[in-house]
């Protein structure tokens, strides 16, 4: 390799060399340096945003809830760290928990980024590195990449540089997991936020690349719908089931079906994000997808056990480790298409298609690893069609017959070991008892609450396939499990931001609720529907993605409409927007960046800290990952957190080990600077946390409303937000919030309908002085309302502070 030094030079002598210049690396870096509009931290390393992180941790303290008191990283140990003891390497429990959280974050970030790298190799190979990035009606195409790296990729090839940066940073972070590295929990925390930020770069690369190449909707308002649910599959047809997150291989199945005109002959359905991205493929301009969405990972075991799929194609992420074992039981061949999941299967990539089809159909092989996607497309469809009649003839299913069912139910000795093992402690034993007396209702109730993990089975001393019993009892529910999900639209476009930005910053749109994550719900799938419906009716913008987007579409109102049909899909109050799959989550954070860039005209390239500060103080957005289960969710959440967006996770989320929570009673923590003059301004204690958990949907609703309040709200905005907070608290908790008064800066902030009542309370309970004639607050509020104040946490941004 040769290195050409910086300078003006002639490289004519290169003319007789046959080369490809992969990317003019240095050029960009140099450019970035000279251009004046790149901020202080292009491609930040671990330390570069540490001061920002420390500011966040000063207000939002890490609180640790260990999943294990021990450390088993190295062979000096293992060590009992309980009571925050130090282990053999000197690490204490708090630091170890922070490290464990960091590990979760970078694992998730790696999952997204490695997915992105795979996809990018594939797309560049197919479409060329010159293929332009096109995400729709936006000049700001890659807000996160631009914010973090300082550069603006224009082609697929340019995206590779962003991934190089991501991979370097992830390696640096992974290195700190090694024993004998970081010693301070606070620095592990900063590293975790770094990993979260990196994760969003990886996600954006992934989604932008696929949107640009695969005819996916590009910021479209009126995308079509995809059929949804276990009940939407016509089980008489041969069925190809895809599972995972990486749509690359799967597009070839759709192409093959298209090419052969088999749309009506075959069912193509997917689980998890591959399903969502299948529905986006070729759905640009409102075209309808030929594929269906079965559901999230909680449906995976259930659907396989149903026996309906004839062949399973897996790619990567959120694929159960036992798919091959389970599928084998029901003679369903499994095709692995990605290096990350190979199940020990023989690599058939270079084998003849006929041979592979024959081996799979005959059952000679339980599955095959095929990394040639053209072959995957053909083989998946052909195997399904050939094997389906045989499989249907045999009636292959794991669901017990009526007789078997009764026998299994009677076999239960009610030892409750299944309940102990159940992640949600479902009352399985009681449901079995009811079923003994032929009351199937209790078992059926479990179906929606059950996350389909199957842990109940290996612990059963009587070898009862508990899940199958539940599913048997729920046949009707499953048949009715069908809905619609709006096809993911990708980014919010620049024009939409231009229109809506002001409402968000002034608070007249009460907030953005981003509902993301998976299906690890505490009380069943309907949770998510309830929340969305409530918030949409209150004019919040609800943005969804991934498996949460699916689960939302599972319920219909009396008119047979899902929320997607009930609410329009523009970036505007009271709208419901599905951005897409898991990696489309990046667009949600990107929306906040776009508001800063387009509405507020802030410079974003390499200017992370300033933009995060802007977002935290001015954009009333709260993310809700109600069913978060995997490491990816912790990465996404941490990326939001560093950008100043608070996140609520469901109660299972306490197992992520740490939350970042503020103490509202520590008044000194709740101040900002007024950028106009550097004066310190008190603010209300919101967002009250960067990440926390809640126990139930009822608790979540007022939390969402409250945590959309921002210092920049004008009176109208604050009044609207406070109205919702108070109403939701009264509706779901039965009381006025304890702290509603701290959000009142003057009487105009008070909800109109309740103004008198609230003024009375302010006077009697809080000792505020009220001028009852004018209905004016004379004294009381700890902060003043000033519409032109410019809240910031960064002293350097204050007038007179520029260095």
């Amino acid at each position: 390799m040769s290195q050409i030094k910086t300078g003006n030079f002639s490289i004519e002598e290169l003319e007789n060399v046959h080369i490809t210049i992969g990317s003019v690396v240095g050029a960009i870096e140099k450019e970035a340096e000279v251009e004046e509009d790149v901020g202080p931290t292009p491609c930040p390393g671990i330390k570069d945003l540490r001061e920002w992180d420390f500011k966040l941790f000063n207000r939002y303290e890490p609180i640790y809830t260990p999943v294990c008191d021990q450390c088993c990283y190295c062979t000096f140990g293992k060590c009992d760290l309980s009571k925050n003891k130090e282990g053999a390497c000197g690490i204490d429990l708090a630091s170890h928990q922070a490290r464990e959280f960091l590990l979760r974050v970078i694992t998730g970030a790696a999952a997204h980024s490695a997915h992105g790298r795979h996809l990018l190799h594939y797309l560049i190979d197919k479409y060329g590195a010159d293929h332009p990035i096109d995400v729709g009606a936006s000049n700001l195409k890659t807000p996160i990449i631009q914010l973090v790296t300082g550069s603006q990729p224009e082609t697929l090839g340019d995206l590779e540089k962003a991934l190089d940066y991501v991979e370097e940073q992830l390696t640096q972070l992974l290195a700190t997991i090694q024993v004998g590295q970081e010693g301070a929990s606070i620095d592990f925390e900063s590293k975790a936020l770094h990993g979260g930020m990196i994760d969003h770069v990886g996600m954006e690369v992934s989604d932008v690349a696929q949107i640009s190449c695969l005819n996916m909707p590009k910021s479209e308002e009126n995308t079509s719908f995809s059929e949804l649910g276990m009940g939407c599959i016509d089980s008489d047809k041969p069925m190809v089931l895809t599972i995972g997150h990486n749509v690359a291989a799967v597009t070839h199945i759709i192409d093959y079906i298209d090419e052969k005109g088999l749309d009506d002959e075959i069912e193509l359905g997917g689980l998890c994000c591959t399903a969502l991205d299948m529905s986006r493929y070729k759905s640009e301009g409102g075209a309808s997808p030929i594929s269906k969405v079965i559901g999230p990972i909680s449906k995976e075991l259930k659907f396989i056990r149903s026996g309906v799929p004839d062949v399973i194609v897996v790619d990567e992420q959120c694929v159960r480790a036992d798919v091959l074992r389970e599928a084998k039981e029901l003679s369903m061949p499994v095709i692995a298409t990605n290096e990350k999941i190979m199940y020990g299967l023989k690599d058939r990539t270079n084998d003849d298609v006929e041979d592979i089809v024959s081996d799979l159909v005959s059952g000679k092989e339980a599955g095959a690893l095929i990394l040639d996607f053209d072959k995957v497309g053909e083989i998946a469809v052909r195997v399904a069609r050939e094997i389906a009649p045989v499989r249907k003839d045999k009636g292959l299913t794991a669901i017990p017959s009526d007789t078997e069912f009764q026998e299994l139910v009677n076999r239960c000795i009610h030892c409750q070991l299944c309940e102990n093992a159940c992640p949600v402690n479902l009352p399985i034993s009681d449901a079995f008892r009811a079923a003994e007396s032929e009351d199937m209702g209790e078992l059926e109730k479990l179906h929606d609450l059950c996350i389909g993990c199957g842990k109940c089975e290996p612990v059963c001393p009587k070898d009862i396939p508990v899940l199958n019993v539940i599913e048997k009892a729920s046949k009707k529910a499953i048949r009715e499990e069908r809905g619609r999900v709006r096809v993911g639209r990708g980014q919010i476009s620049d024009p939409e931001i231009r229109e809506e930005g002001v409402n968000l910053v002034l608070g007249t749109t009460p907030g953005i609720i981003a509902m993301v994550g998976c299906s690890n719900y505490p009380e069943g799938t309907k949770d998510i529907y309830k929340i969305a419906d409530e918030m949409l009716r209150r004019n919040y913008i609800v943005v969804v993605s991934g498996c949460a987007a699916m689960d939302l579409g599972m319920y219909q109102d009396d008119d047979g409409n899902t929320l997607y049909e009930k609410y329009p899909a523009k970036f505007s109050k009271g709208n419901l927007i599905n951005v897409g799959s898991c990696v489309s989550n990046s667009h949600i954070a990107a929306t906040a960046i776009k508001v800063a860039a387009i509405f507020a005209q802030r410079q974003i390239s390499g200017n992370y800290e300033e933009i995060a500060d802007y977002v935290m103080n001015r954009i009333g957005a709260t993310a809700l990952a109600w069913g978060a289960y995997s490491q990816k969710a912790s990465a996404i959440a941490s990326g939001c957190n560093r950008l100043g967006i608070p996140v609520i996770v469901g109660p299972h989320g306490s197992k992520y080990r740490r939350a970042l929570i503020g103490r509202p009673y520590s008044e000194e923590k709740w101040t900002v600077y007024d950028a106009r003059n550097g004066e310190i301004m008190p603010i209300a204690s919101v967002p009250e946390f960067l990440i926390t958990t809640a126990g139930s949907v009822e608790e979540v609703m007022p939390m969402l409303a409250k945590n959309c309040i921002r210092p920049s709200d004008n009176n109208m905005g604050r009044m609207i937000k406070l109205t919702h907070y108070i109403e939701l608290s009264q509706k779901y908790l039965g009381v006025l919030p304890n702290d509603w008064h701290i959000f009142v800066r003057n009487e105009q902030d008070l909800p109109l309908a309740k103004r008198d009542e609230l003024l009375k309370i302010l006077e009697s309970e809080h000792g505020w002085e009220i001028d009852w004639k004018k209905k004016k607050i004379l004294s009381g509020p700890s902060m003043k309302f000033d519409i032109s104040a410019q809240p910031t946490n960064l002293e350097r941004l204050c007038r007179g502070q520029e260095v």
Partner: protein
Amino acid sequence: MSWAGGVIMVETTKNTAISTTWGTKIAKPVQPKVAGKLISKAKRPLLVVGGDVLDEDLLKRAIQIGKKGIPIAATGHSMKGFVDADVDAKYVNIHSLGLYLGDPQWHGLDGNGQYDLIIVLAHKKYYINQVLSGIRNFTDLKTLSIDRNYIQNADMSFGKLDKETHLKALDELIENL
């Protein structure tokens, strides 16, 4: 069967099976009477209830405990059950509460200072175990679970009980307050 000179009315120390461990410590199984005495002896006990308290039978007992002068932290959406109950109940998010409880600067839900005994009731088992994991490792607070499930990360806990026994156990506990 006798215990420390008294007759056990409701046996709550059996069935303490666990499916996973957090480490070497697990809650000591406790009888209702002992639990009652413990609460009575505490200077600043706090009853932390979860959303499952809205069950009619449980709510009744939680209110009875509250009426004995024990302040209640109503977590999740449990506040709904205490609105007109004339007990000292306040809504708080349990994860936030976990943070505040470890802070010597915190003045409690009522401004009267920190607590010394945390009593938990009517929570999701996995959730309360996590919250207690934090409290156990990072504070010196004593914790007592009087829930239907065996809550292994408390210092003391009832074993796993059926609903009926649980209610009886609570009654016995209340008698001993």
